[in-house]
């Protein structure tokens, strides 16, 4: 059904948003959960809902709520531990299927994607028609999971459109109607206007996208720079963000974890830090990377402590990373309760076997057999863990660690090192 030149869209973007994705996968795989309110948590011990089914939402339960709050609103809610590998696999299948519509696809997160269909109008037909095709592809690839679709002339408008009707909605906003359509929508609908910016704009008397567009551009630029300009344009449906199909190579590799409430025991904090250090090192090794700088952070109930450590390039070593974390504990921690730890490697380079002239410590020269043994040992452990599961073989210090299920990071992508979700 080729489109006639009169309704040809100068730019056409489809945004696909899987509805209550993790919960929907659970309900699909376990028929006894269908039509019941369910909440998905990180592992059995998780206390925060990472998502919940529409049946639970009807009671006012929301993503991000604590489980006990959800139970107060909806006593029958069923808790399900997340199965990140399954979700990632389903997502990968959906994203691969969507390529049939157009190769210009940006996987925005595990349950969201933008597709630029500008150049497929002659081939497939009008953008609204392609939205129906997209839904059919998603349903076939996922065995009928629900998704909301927005079709518009820009990425941000398409995202706003897909938000409007859930679940299984379709909202079409032709480019020539975008401005008028946005005019009366609350400005918070625009992805990028968070509570902070919204407060600033409210003080200026703006409530809708139309109000924001009516403000002088200057006001936003002076306060928020290019971001301000971008949002101002977005409120009129004029943002020009391209659909980015290339997944950039990682700038950092990090792992963080929330600790049990009121953790003050150094031993426990160290275990968490060691765990994160080993995870970062193993992940760097798995993807053949090395790091030049390690960031370590501790979050307290109030405030935080952080430090960056220069680490010598070379095969990543969790024990060395942990020593940096310990230096932060020694130097800055004064016994406060730690709520969260973070270990992040930055200044990432490919690990290519190039030996260093100035190795880590004065004692170990690169040709040194102890250094060589250490590298070989780490690689052997990695191979064992790749086969039998993450941390099958781990430092003894980690024996006492609590169960810490892995989660899907916002940076997850179906290919390359970003697909990483260890068992």
């Amino acid at each position, binding site marked *: 059904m080729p489109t006639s030149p009169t309704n040809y869209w100068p730019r056409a973007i489809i945004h696909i948003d899987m509805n209550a994705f993790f919960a929907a996968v659970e309900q699909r795989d376990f028929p006894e959960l269908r039509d019941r309110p369910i909440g998905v948590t990180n592992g059995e011990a998780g206390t925060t809902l990472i998502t919940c089914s529409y049946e639970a939402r009807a009671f006012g339960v929301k993503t991000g709520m604590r489980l006990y709050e959800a139970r107060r609103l909806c006593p029958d809610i069923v808790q399900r531990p997340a199965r990140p590998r399954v979700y990632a696999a389903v997502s990968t299948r959906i994203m691969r299927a969507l390529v049939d519509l157009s190769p210009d696809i940006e996987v925005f997160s595990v349950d969201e994607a933008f597709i630029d269909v500008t150049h497929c109008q002659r081939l497939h037909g009008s953008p609204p028609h392609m939205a129906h095709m997209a839904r059919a592809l998603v349903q076939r690839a996922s065995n009928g999971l629900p998704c909301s679709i927005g079709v518009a002339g820009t990425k941000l408008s398409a995202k706003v459109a897909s938000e409007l009707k859930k679940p299984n909605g379709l909202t079409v906003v032709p480019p020539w109607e975008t401005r008028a359509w946005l005019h009366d929508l609350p400005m918070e609908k625009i992805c990028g206007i968070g509570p902070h910016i919204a407060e600033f704009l409210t003080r200026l008397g703006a409530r809708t996208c139309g109000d924001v567009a009516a403000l002088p551009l200057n006001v936003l630029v002076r306060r928020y720079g290019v971001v301000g300009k971008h949002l101002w344009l977005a409120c009129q449906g004029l943002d020009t963000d391209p659909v980015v199909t290339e997944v950039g190579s990682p700038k950092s590799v990090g792992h963080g974890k929330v600790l049990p409430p009121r953790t003050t025991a150094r031993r426990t904090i160290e275990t968490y830090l060691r765990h994160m250090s080993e995870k970062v090192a193993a992940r760097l090794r798995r993807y053949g990377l090395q790091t030049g700088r390690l960031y370590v952070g501790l979050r307290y109930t109030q405030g935080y402590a952080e430090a960056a450590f220069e680490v010598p390039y070379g095969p990543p070593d969790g024990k060395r990373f942990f020593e940096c974390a310990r230096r932060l504990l020694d130097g800055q921690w004064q016994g406060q309760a730690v709520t969260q730890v973070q270990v992040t490697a930055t200044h990432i380079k490919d690990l290519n*076997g*190039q*030996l260093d002239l100035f190795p880590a410590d004065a004692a170990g020269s690169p040709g040194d057999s102890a250094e060589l043994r250490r590298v070989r040992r780490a690689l052997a452990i990695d191979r064992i863990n790749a086969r039998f599961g993450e941390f099958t073989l781990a430092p003894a210090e980690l024996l006492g660690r609590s169960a810490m299920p892995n989660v899907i990071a916002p940076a997850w992508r179906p290919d390359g090192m970003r697909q990483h979700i260890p068992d």
Partner: protein
Amino acid sequence: MRIQIQREDLLKPLSLVGGAAERRQTLPILSNVLLRMSDAGLVLTGTDLEVEVVAKTNQTKGEAGEMTLPARKLLEICRALPAQATLDIKQEKDKATLKSGRSRFSLMTLPAGDFPSIETAQWEQTLTLEQKPLKTLLEKTQFCMAQQDVRYYLNGMLFDLSGKQLRAVATDGHRMAVSETTLPTPIDSTRQLIVPRKGIQEMIRFLGDEKVEVQLQINPNHIRLNLADLTFTCKLIDGRYPDYTKVIPSGQRTLLRIGREELRGTLNRVAILSNEKFRGVRLSLKTGSMNIVAHNPEHEEAQEELTVDYKGEDLEIGFNANYIMDAVSALESDDIEFGLSDANSSCTLHSPGDTSHQYVVMPMRL
């Protein structure tokens, strides 16, 4: 302020100064060049607060005074004007007019009083040497400097002074260049300083091949290079350079003498099929021969054999071909000496019997 000057008389000092002017515009005035006119002539200054270039020209007529003009635009205008054109630059309030022939340009100026200058402490040491050996010293080592390395002290060049000797050292942590030259007059102490990358690159631009002397002035925070019509000042990197003497192998087990062009040609050909990113090549030594092999991820292979005077056990060692080629290209003798010990230790490259320019390269595990 008003000046009249021939295009060519302005172009030379302006292009010297223009390189120092900031392009990233952290402070708007840093992208400007300062023009100061006095009885002694016209003086141009450009700075990014890390380096400062002051260039003189005395072929000017005009009234004394000072003003600042956008460096890049002024340079581009100068370049684009016809040869031998006369420029007439005049400041009026916050604008300057540049007239030449039938062209007229109105340029934005910023107050000359706001133009920053690098404050330098008392100079503690002064060296005088010919331009040519200093230029050679920098050219033979500069390509080994690190670029945006977290080890910030490697993003520059070490000057190691002791007695009659000036050594320049550059390394990115994988390979290292060490060059030395003799000073006409010895200094009575030792001193180490690290000159940032940009400073070295600018110095190479300013130095000529003539037998004219150049003066270097040093204090703990700055280095200054004085030439007849130019003064270049550069902030030093505050850091501790690694002990480079420790990583120069004292004695290599094997010392091979290889034709320089032969080795360069071979590496050049073989490296075509190495991994484009890592550039790894494998050297296999057997009695009488060196076999150089490269593979890439597409499983293509390149191989070439060189005849060498190798005696001893078979040895296999991997290198980044670019590191070896850079060193081989920088050396000038017909033959080079290639020193090796084992697969995990560094190799050395220099001219036979001459270590005034030497290169140390760490291997790769392939």
